[in-house]
């Protein structure tokens, strides 16, 4: 779940990171008042959960409170990547001498957190990594031991920053690492972190993503920031399909079925099992298939829940068939999922044999599940067929139909 910039900054300020004077405006009058209180030129930034604000014209500079008020009215209605703003951050405009980038995130390949630092901040870090790789450092660290400031120092020093700048940047980067770990974040980013002309270091823009599953552990912080339990805080507003999926999932405490994301393809996916969803989704695409959705099932969802999920996926415009695939399951029963998807097909007025391109869920109660699938003429396979092969069979069926 994403935090707005002003919330990220509140979190950073809580941890002693240096920030410029600012205030959150929800009205023209508030924008005027905050700019007057700051008493110098300001920057107004639309508060949306998306990048691309500058390009969309949702970041503007004002020299006077009157100008700030006028720009507030101009900025607030601007929709940035589908996101509507409800507030604008009014912040002192800072004369910048040098911009840096620092981000802390997880490296999935290394299975470790990593600090990414660059002395070329203010622009897209991926672009810097491509065009000036020597200006970007990646420093992994372990979560098994306390993280010392040495990690931050290494990350900064690797880009050639030294002397006073190195010494003054180190505590900021170190604190960002602590914030990342303490609040179960998936991303803690400052871009840019700047050295002002007067030598001070200031966080100019920040971006924080918290692991959605960790919300329960950080209720106090979320309450402090005013983030309500019903706010999903995804990168874009959920679609009707996704809202319906969440309702299916919430309808029954048993298992998971309904965490869906809509895509434009024609092959519906009822997939899951501890990372299996990602693997299977990628496998379908690798075979040239076009997924209609991403989804996650697991933890032995009830027949009704699986049935409703199947109906939801089949009800998506353009979906011709579904592929029901999981890794080898131990905590989900194959027969229960088989009942659910077949029932979902029948209740959608479809023939399970024609609709289910492949059923590949090996594991607990598979013999019972296979009896059900056989009765309804559904093609199924056991663990001797890999997830990748099963995805290939599903795609081949789609291409043949």
């Amino acid at each position: 779940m994403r935090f707005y910039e002003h919330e990220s900054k509140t979190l950073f300020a809580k941890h002693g990171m240096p920030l410029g004077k600012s205030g959150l405006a929800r009205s023209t009058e508030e924008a005027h008042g905050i700019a007057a209180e700051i008493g110098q030129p300001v920057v107004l930034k639309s508060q949306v959960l998306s990048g691309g604000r500058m390009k969309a014209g949702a970041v503007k500079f004002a020299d006077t409170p009157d100008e700030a008020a006028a720009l507030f009215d101009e900025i607030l209605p601007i929709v940035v990547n589908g996101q509507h703003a409800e507030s604008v951050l009014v912040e002192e405009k800072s004369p910048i001498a040098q911009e840096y980038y620092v981000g802390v995130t997880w490296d999935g390949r290394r299975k470790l957190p990593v600090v990414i630092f660059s002395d070329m901040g203010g622009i897209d870090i991926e672009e810097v990594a491509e065009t000036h790789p020597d200006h970007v450092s990646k420093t992994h660290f372990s979560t098994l031991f306390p993280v010392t400031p040495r990690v931050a120092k290494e990350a900064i020093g690797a880009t050639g920053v030294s002397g006073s700048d190195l010494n003054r940047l180190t505590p900021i980067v170190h604190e960002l690492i602590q914030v990342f770990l303490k609040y179960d974040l998936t991303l803690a980013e400052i871009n840019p972190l700047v050295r002002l002309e007067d030598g001070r270091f200031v966080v100019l823009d920040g971006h924080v993503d918290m692991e959605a599953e960790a919300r329960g552990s950080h209720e106090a912080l979320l309450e402090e920031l005013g983030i309500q339990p019903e706010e999903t805080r995804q990168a874009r507003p959920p679609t009707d399909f996704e809202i319906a999926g969440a309702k299916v999932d919430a309808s029954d405490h048993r298992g998971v079925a309904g965490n869906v994301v809509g895509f434009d393809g024609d092959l519906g996916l009822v997939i899951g099992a501890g990372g299996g969803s990602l693997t299977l989704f990628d496998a379908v695409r690798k075979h040239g298939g076009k997924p209609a959705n991403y989804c996650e099932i697991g933890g032995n969802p009830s027949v009704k829940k699986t049935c409703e999920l199947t109906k939801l996926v089949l009800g998506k415009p353009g979906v011709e068939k579904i592929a029901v695939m999981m890794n080898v399951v131990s905590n989900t029963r194959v027969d229960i999922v088989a009942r659910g998807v077949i029932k979902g097909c029948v209740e959608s007025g479809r023939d399970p044999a024609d609709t289910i391109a492949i059923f590949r869920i090996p594991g607990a109660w598979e013999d019972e599940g296979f009896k059900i699938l056989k009765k309804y003429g559904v093609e199924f396979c056991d663990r001797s067929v890999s997830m990748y092969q099963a995805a290939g069979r599903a795609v081949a069926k789609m291409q043949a139909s």
Partner: protein
Amino acid sequence: MSGMFIEVTVDAKIADDRELAKKLEEVCPVAIFDSSGETLRIAEENLDECVLCDLCLEIGPKGAVQVHKLYE
């Protein structure tokens, strides 16, 4: 009473025995039996949730409760 995959039958004597009916409701993990009324009700909407645990089969005389898999 049958669902799409599972059929459950209960001997009438058991259905009218409030104590046994209550036990059936207690043991079933997926709420197939409802003993709140005057006679035991089988919740049709839950039949297909049956996890084949056989706990209901152990209540009362042998054969009084039967669970049939309709896909066999």
